[in-house]
């Protein structure tokens, strides 16, 4: 048998190693393992079981089929397609021979502590592709190098006279060897002392070319399982009735009618664990109905007679909170919670003001409204827990299971099927805590399902915000000063984050126009509320881009200027500006996306166009985005006629996937800006279904989104929410041109109809 030497590692960087693992059974496996150098070598791997031992790996079988593991959860962001393609390209694999499998959580026991053997595993935060770019390519490169050496040995010629193409090694003399025929030999080749060089961009075969979603066939045939579709033998279905107030208590309950429903097994009470941060424990006190099937559980829940008693939050309302924000911002003596940035001297600049402009923008609370509601399947055995979790962060799901079960790290299995939307909601794992608590108490596996009503009514919402801006303009019509104040309830509160960092979920110190003006001040005022908050798609850019890019339009209007010219003047010459986060703002790239959308929508017609044209630009973690929107009013109806979006993300891994993300984020942002708001009164969320939280349907949305992607060769950035921030301000700016109504409050439709 060949491949007796089954295990070898090559150092990548601190604590990360490329590892070759071959069973000598016609297979070559390579993975990235996060490990200590002192770790004992893995035992000879056996096919099938190695999935859990190896990191984001590539496996080549003797029939030349290639299996690639996808480590980050795919919530619709396309990472299950893009990440494997990064590996496959470096390997020169034939994509038609590649299968992708979604990896569960990779966790091993390191003296009682979890050891994340796949490294980072997190989806929907815009970081999957940048991280993969720095490590996954190396796994593919190593596999290709080993196959080349094996072919060189077989053919008796130096490796530099061989090349790889679509799963085949080809010699200068035309002889060809399939990868499959080389795997046994390749697994006996000693690893190089240094990493083999990565491909140069001119040799990319897959990166930069369009690829459809790897799960597409399973999805269109209804075969792809989401967590909500998982069954586990004798699992009980649990549905919940949460207390309307997170700090409320159960006053009275009558379960007789519920227990009389055939199939209902038990009614149980759930209580948040004191001292646990938001997102780690039950979101609010709840009563759970456990039944043999979903229909019985739902009927049982409907027959519950519960009286909840409100806690201190029972007097809260979103309207009062907004009034509090307005009062704070209006009080010039009120010290900010955090002075986020203070360049130059806005007060001194104010003395030189020829004109001033002040405006305030009001944005509502928002829910996540994932298509797949919160759910979780948990089976607990004496020395083992198995959970199927729709999560963006399986390591955090693991931590909740571990805390509640006390099991050792590797005794906990977290499976992550495709996830029906994340948008930040699934970075929190309250629903995992609920399922584990119930499974523990009832002694049977539990399949937890939140109804839509629970899902909208009990979320870690995005806080509403008030922005108050003032601009100082000199006699030469230049903006020389900018003073902005924002009030919101931090998404990081009640999560163990120190007070002086709470602002970081609400705004960026280097968001536009910071760095472009000599005098710039940005203050943040904290609001507090018992209504839970958490990460949300596009946070913190969404609300800030709407306010800022609307305000720039208002400056243009005041100066009787074309708003594109105002922006070009504000941005100035192409140059590199250092950002507080360590990166740089490439003004040239920002100007470029802005001009691209302007050209495409024929901005030269801005003044005389009957419909309204609006534009906006923004930058997000080294990526650049601009939107241009053409809209018209037909009576009280708003028609979005054209939407153009240009993005610059550096190197594009999958153009089709990127276009989908950009178009999708644009539509999501438009739907949100047009229609959506969460409100609360007496501490209770008012929205309970799609009727009250009306995502935009086909008719309300544009028929097409024209996506322009800027080709580039810089390392790729993430794009899952890049196109969110600028869609709404470009729309509001277009609406202003079309209707002469400046919308400073979202949701837009309600406000527009009020002002028309």
């Amino acid at each position, binding site marked *: 048998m060949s491949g007796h030497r089954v295990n070898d590692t090559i150092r990548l960087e601190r604590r990360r190693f490329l590892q070759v693992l071959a069973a000598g059974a016609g297979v070559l496996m390579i993975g990235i393992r996060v490990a200590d150098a002192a770790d004992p070598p893995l035992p000879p791997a056996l096919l099938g079981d190695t999935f859990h031992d190896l990191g984001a790996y590539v496996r080549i079988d003797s029939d030349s089929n290639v299996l690639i593991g996808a480590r980050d959860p*795919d919530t*619709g962001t396309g990472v299950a397609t893009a990440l494997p393609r990064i590996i496959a390209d470096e390997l020169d694999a034939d994509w038609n021979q590649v299968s992708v499998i979604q990896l569960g959580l990779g966790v091993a026991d390191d003296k009682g502590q979890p050891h994340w053997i796949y490294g980072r595993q997190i989806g929907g935060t815009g970081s999957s592709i940048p991280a993969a770019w720095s490590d996954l390519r190396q796994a593919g490169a190593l596999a290709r190098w080993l196959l080349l050496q094996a072919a060189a040995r077989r053919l008796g010629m130096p490796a530099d006279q061989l090349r790889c193409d679509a799963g085949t090694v080809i010699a200068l003399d035309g002889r060809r060897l399939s990868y499959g025929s080389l795997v046994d030999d390749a697994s006996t080749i000693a690893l190089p002392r240094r990493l083999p060089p990565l491909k140069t961009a001119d040799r990319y075969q897959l990166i930069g070319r369009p690829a*459809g*979603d790897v*799960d*597409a*066939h399973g*999805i*269109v*045939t*209804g*075969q*792809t*399982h*989401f967590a*909500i*579709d998982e*069954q586990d033998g*004798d699992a009980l279905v649990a549905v919940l009735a949460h207390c309307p107030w997170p700090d409320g208590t159960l006053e009275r309950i009558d379960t007789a009618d519920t227990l009389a429903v*055939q*199939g209902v097994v038990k009614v149980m009470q759930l209580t948040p664990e004191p001292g646990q941060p938001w997102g780690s424990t039950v979101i609010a006190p709840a009563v759970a109905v456990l039944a043999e*099937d*979903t*229909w*019985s559980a*739902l009927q049982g829940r409907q027959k519950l007679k519960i009286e909840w008693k409100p806690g201190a939050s029972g007097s809260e309302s979103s309207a009062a909170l907004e009034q509090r924000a307005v009062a704070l911002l209006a009080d010039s003596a009120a010290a900010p919670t955090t002075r986020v940035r203070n360049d130059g001297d806005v007060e001194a600049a104010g003395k030189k003001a020829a004109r001033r402009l002040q405006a305030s923008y009001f944005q509502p609370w928002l829910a996540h*409204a*994932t*298509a*797949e509601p919160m759910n979780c399947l948990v089976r607990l055995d004496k020395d083992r827990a198995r959970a199927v979790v729709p999560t963006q962060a399986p390591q955090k799901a693991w931590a909740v299971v571990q805390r509640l079960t006390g099991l050792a790290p590797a005794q906990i299995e977290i499976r992550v099927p*495709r*996830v*029906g*939307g*994340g*948008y930040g909601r699934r970075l929190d794992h309250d629903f995992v805590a609920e399922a584990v608590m119930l499974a523990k108490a009832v002694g049977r596996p539990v399949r937890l*399902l939140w*109804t*839509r*009503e629970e899902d909208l009514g009990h979320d870690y919402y995005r806080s509403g915000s008030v922005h108050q801006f003032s601009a100082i303009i000199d006699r030469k019509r230049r903006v020389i000063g900018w003073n902005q104040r924002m009030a919101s309830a931090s998404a990081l509160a009640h999560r163990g984050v120190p007070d002086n960092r709470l602002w970081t979920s609400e705004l960026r110190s280097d968001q536009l126009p910071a760095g472009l003006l000599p005098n710039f001040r940005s203050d943040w005022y904290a609001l507090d509320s018992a209504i839970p908050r958490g990460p949300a798609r596009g946070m913190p850019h969404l609300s800030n881009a709407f306010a800022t890019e609307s305000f720039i339009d208002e400056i243009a209007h005041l100066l009787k200027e074309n708003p594109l010219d105002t922006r070009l003047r504000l941005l100035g010459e192409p140059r590199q500006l250092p950002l507080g986060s360590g990166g740089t703002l490439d003004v040239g790239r920002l100007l470029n996306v802005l001009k691209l959308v302007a050209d495409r929508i024929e901005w030269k017609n801005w003044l005389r166009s009957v419909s309204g044209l609006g534009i906006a630009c923004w930058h997000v973690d080294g990526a650049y985005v601009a939107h241009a929107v053409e809209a018209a009013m037909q009576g009280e109806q708003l028609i979005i006629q054209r939407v153009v979006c240009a993005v610059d993300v550096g190197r594009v891994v999958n153009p089709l*996937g990127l276009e*989908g993300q950009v*178009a*999708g*984020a*644009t*539509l*999501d942002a438009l*739907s949100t800006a047009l229609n959506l708001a969460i409100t609360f009164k007496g501490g209770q969320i008012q929205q309970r*279904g*799609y*009727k009250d939280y009306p*995502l935009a*349907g*086909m*008719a309300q*949305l*544009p*028929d*097409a989104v024209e996506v322009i992607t800027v080709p580039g060769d810089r390392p790729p950035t993430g794009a899952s929410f890049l196109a969110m921030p600028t869609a709404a301000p470009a729309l509001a700016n277009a609406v202003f041109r079309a209707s002469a109504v400046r919308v400073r409050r979202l949701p837009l439709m309600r406000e527009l109809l009020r002002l028309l």
Partner: protein
Amino acid sequence: MAPVQAQVLPISPDSGIVPVEARNGIDLEINGEHYRHTGDPQMPLLWYLRDVLQLTGTKYGDAHGENGADLVLLDGKAVSAITLPVAKLAGRQVTTVEGLAADDGTLHPLQQAFIDEDAIGCGYCTPGWLIAAAGLLRRKKQPGDDDIDQLPNLCRCGCQTRVRRAIKRVAAGKAVQP
């Protein structure tokens, strides 16, 4: 283990075995297969599909079927499965997303078009879109934008523009390819 509420009795048409008629079941035809439901006649079709038959392609969206994730074809018309009690299904034909493709696995033109246009976000609401579009194309072979605008489905991932392209691709006869 506690008793299950509903029971499935698949009946092969050419089988010589005649089921005993002792139970007052409801005969169902789903994706061309015959079943008899003997549990609660008020059970919504959605839960019968998902919990009993384990046909999980049809998704739960909300209690009223407002986001279209739970659509099925009932005698060719797209209807919400969560508002449809099994009792109303006797003698009617139900097609779910699992039944759209031909028996030999050949995809329905819409399924192929959704793949070709990559009309998929997270994929959770995709079966509902497919059923809604299939219902529309049965009513109208050449639907216009206004017809497509009437589809009831909601999607936060923003797959609407790609779904529109996929439906138009089928209407234009471009999707008939392997």
